[in-house]
């Protein structure tokens, strides 16, 4: 009848977990800070000043958020199709390598705009390829994407490590030579206030990607079908959607988005690929997607939040150990994971199947017969 309760429930479900998580962070953070004999208020203030209090801090937060937005969005897109992509770490690294590889391979005289476009495309191609492998294995052979994406991390990272260490590194380092084409300028070069911070114009590219993914998911036929597959594969199949192909497409897209994140470091910050640059940003993407509720805009907000925590850790390091921030990040993930509907549904489903395990002796109906698939 009245839809107000339903709408209110939806709103509650969207806002309550982050608010609860934030409250938890504040309380737990207070306790931790007190154990170091510092005043919580002062530490929090320092954290805010070191992040959003000045242009340099904002620049650093934006730089970190740019990578996290990519890996978070990658995980979110896969989850929208009902797939858990744990491989963003490897896809991010592959994307970064792809960008550097293109930047090194292109002839020196390439116009910079063309070079940048090709390098970005290469990053997405490499990341997309790393994502497509589990997608194809899932679609063709039913290999579970969680296992395959986890394993792909080891394969991709080890392979890149080998290529860098054996073929492409500058002596005494674990990074490639500096690229000569495809560099993206830092924002600090044109807006003096940001001087010294790592934020670069990749942030614009990634923002455009977020908008494009949002449009794709909610405004296109492809997105309509992708989300239907994630919500109800049976209904999608009935609706004429090729479920396997959608899975492949979703994981390839997911990998490409994660790969785009590599551009931020390689083209925009260092100008070369460095082994291990992903440094957990891929895994943190899972948390970003969960906190962002798999919505592109939510992912952006969550990426900014985690980037703030991470940069804030550096700011407060003088008063308390920056590892406090890692504890807080873990708490946020736990708090949100425990309350996010997807997780709750998975847990309920797992509990449900266990309870319903000894079922009817004969196929009673179509739905029963389908259930064990």
């Amino acid at each position, binding site marked *: 009848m009245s839809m107000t309760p339903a709408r209110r429930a939806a709103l509650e479900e969207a806002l309550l977990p982050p608010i609860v998580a934030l409250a938890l962070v504040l309380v737990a953070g207070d306790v931790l800070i007190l154990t170091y004999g510092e005043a919580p208020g002062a530490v929090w203030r320092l954290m805010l000043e070191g992040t959003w209090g000045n242009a340099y801090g904002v620049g650093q937060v934006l730089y970190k958020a740019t990578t996290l937005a990519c890996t978070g969005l990658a995980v979110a897109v896969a989850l929208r199709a009902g797939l858990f992509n744990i491989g963003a770490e490897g896809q991010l690294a592959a994307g970064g390598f792809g960008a550097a590889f293109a930047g090194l391979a292109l002839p020196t005289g390439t116009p910079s705009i063309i070079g940048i476009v090709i390098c970005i495309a290469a990053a997405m191609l490499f990341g997309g390829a790393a994502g497509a492998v589990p997608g194809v294995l899932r679609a063709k052979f039913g290999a579970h994407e969680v296992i395959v994406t986890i394993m792909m991390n080891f394969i991709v990272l080890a392979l890149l490590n080998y290529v860098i260490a054996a073929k492409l590194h500058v002596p005494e380092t674990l990074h490639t030579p500096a690229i000569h084409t495809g560099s993206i300028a830092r924002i600090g070069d044109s807006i003096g206030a940001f001087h010294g911070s790592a934020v670069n114009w990749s942030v614009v590219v990634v923002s455009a990607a977020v908008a494009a993914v949002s449009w794709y998911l909610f405004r296109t036929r492809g997105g309509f079908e992708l989300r239907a597959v994630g919500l109800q594969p049976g209904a999608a*199949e009935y609706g004429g959607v090729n479920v396997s192909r959608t899975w492949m497409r979703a994981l390839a897209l997911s990998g490409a988005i994660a790969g785009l994140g590599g551009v931020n470091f390689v083209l925009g910050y260092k100008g070369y690929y460095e082994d291990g640059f992903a440094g957990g940003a891929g895994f943190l993407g899972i948390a970003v997607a969960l906190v962002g509720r798999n919505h592109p805009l939510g992912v952006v907000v969550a990426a900014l939040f985690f980037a703030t925590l991470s940069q804030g850790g550096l700011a407060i390091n003088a008063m308390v150990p920056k590892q406090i921030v890692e504890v807080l990040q873990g708490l946020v993930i736990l708090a949100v994971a425990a309350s996010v509907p997807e997780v709750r549904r998975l847990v309920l489903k797992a509990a449900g199947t266990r309870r*319903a395990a000894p079922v009817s002796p004969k*196929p*009673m109906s179509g*739905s029963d*017969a389908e259930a064990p698939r």
Partner: protein
Amino acid sequence: MTASVGGPTAVVRMNGIQKYFGAVHANRGAEIEVGAGEIHALVGENGAGKSTLMKILSGMQAPDGGRVEVGGRDVTGWTTAQAIAAGVGMVHQHFMLVPTLTVAENVVLGREPVSVATFDRDRAIREVEELSEQSGLIVPANRLVADLSVGEAQRVEILKTLYRGARILLLDEPTAVLSPPEVTELWAVLRRVRDTGTTIILITHKLDEVMAVTECITVMRQGATVARMATRATTPEGIAKAMVGRDVNLAVQTSAGRGNGAADGGGGATGLTVRNLTVRGPRIERAVNDVTFSVAPGEILGIAGVEGNGQTELLEAISGLRAITSGSIRVGDRDITRASVRERGDAGLSHIPEDRHQRGLVLEYSVADNLILGQQHHYSRNGAIDRAAVATNAAKQVAAFDVRPTDASLEVRTLSGGNQQKVVIARELSRDFIVLLAAQPTRGVDVGAIEFIHDTLRKARDAGKAILLVSAELREVLSLADRVAVMYGGRFVAVMPRADASEEVLGPYMTGARKADTESAA
């Protein structure tokens, strides 16, 4: 027999029961009084709160308000363990049996007789056989549950409850999976169990069952108890009126179709043609076994049969959701044997799937989006969904099929079962099609919406559509079909004009007791 309601002999008394599930108010002051040793029907439409009320009685749910008395004792908010200990046992719609154990082992599970710390199998078998004889529930104690028929499995379920000492037996829609002879047997068993002093509460929405076997009726509507009556003093029409809150036409209409091809369904048919179709099922190699038939334009072919005899696989194969082993399928004059689901749709195949929650709807999608599911390629331009066209279509369908509430932006999961089914039917009937597959079109739908859906199907038939109807409700098949086929063990064991079909004629075919000489001669 205990006359009408309540009185001092009431063994179950529930008053003013309130139960909320989030925003849903499932029970609003529901009440029921059941006399000792009677068979009591609890009826109401889907979502009326019957199951919730019984779950509260059996301890699976705690009420948010009200009082539950069993045997004069206040037991409000008790646990399932306490309920079982007090002799309240529930037989669920979906059986809770371990297929790899024997009947006797299943019956004693949780209360195994033990001698010197080991399971005393001989005693278990003896006890089960004794109980079986006492109650009239004949079961083969040594057989594996996996090898039982559905009817036998159900008897094991009832026996299990009795073994635990149930004096009050709750049965949730027990006939949903039974063939007519099995239903008759179940009634005999229940009467005998009742005569040993057990009180039985039967949750159902089938009125003929209520009339056949119960003494007393409690009717629920929208979470509240709206009527209590003695079965002898009422009629099916009276019960239906109480369930829906208005007059309902229950008569079995047998309006024949225009009948071009209704008699032979053969020559020149441009509806649905299926030849030598064999389909593999999830458990059986030949779930559909060499079936040949056709449905002519302007004809409804109704497939009767106990669920699980290949109907699901047949429809899934025709709609492209399940790979076929051999055979051919044509819609109109197009061969769709190897076509994709989308190509079949575009060739003129519409499909009301039997499970709207798994297949027919994306529950988290809006009504408007669900109304284009399967048609999304006709509602997009250059890959982008045409939102304006989706909204226009939604407004039109919601009005034409009287979907409520009328806000098409609502998630379809917030609609009642009947309105959800209307969304599916609106979508499948409003598009351009030649053949309609209608599987269980009124399952889980309230009495009021059933009339509407039946009328809609008849109109489609009269407009020259070929309709293949599959229903577990024999009544529905008889009410709609121009020709009736019976499916048993993956084959069409009988095909006959509606005029020759009746429950008595079809029953033996449905159980496999009779097989027609000329098989699959449709």
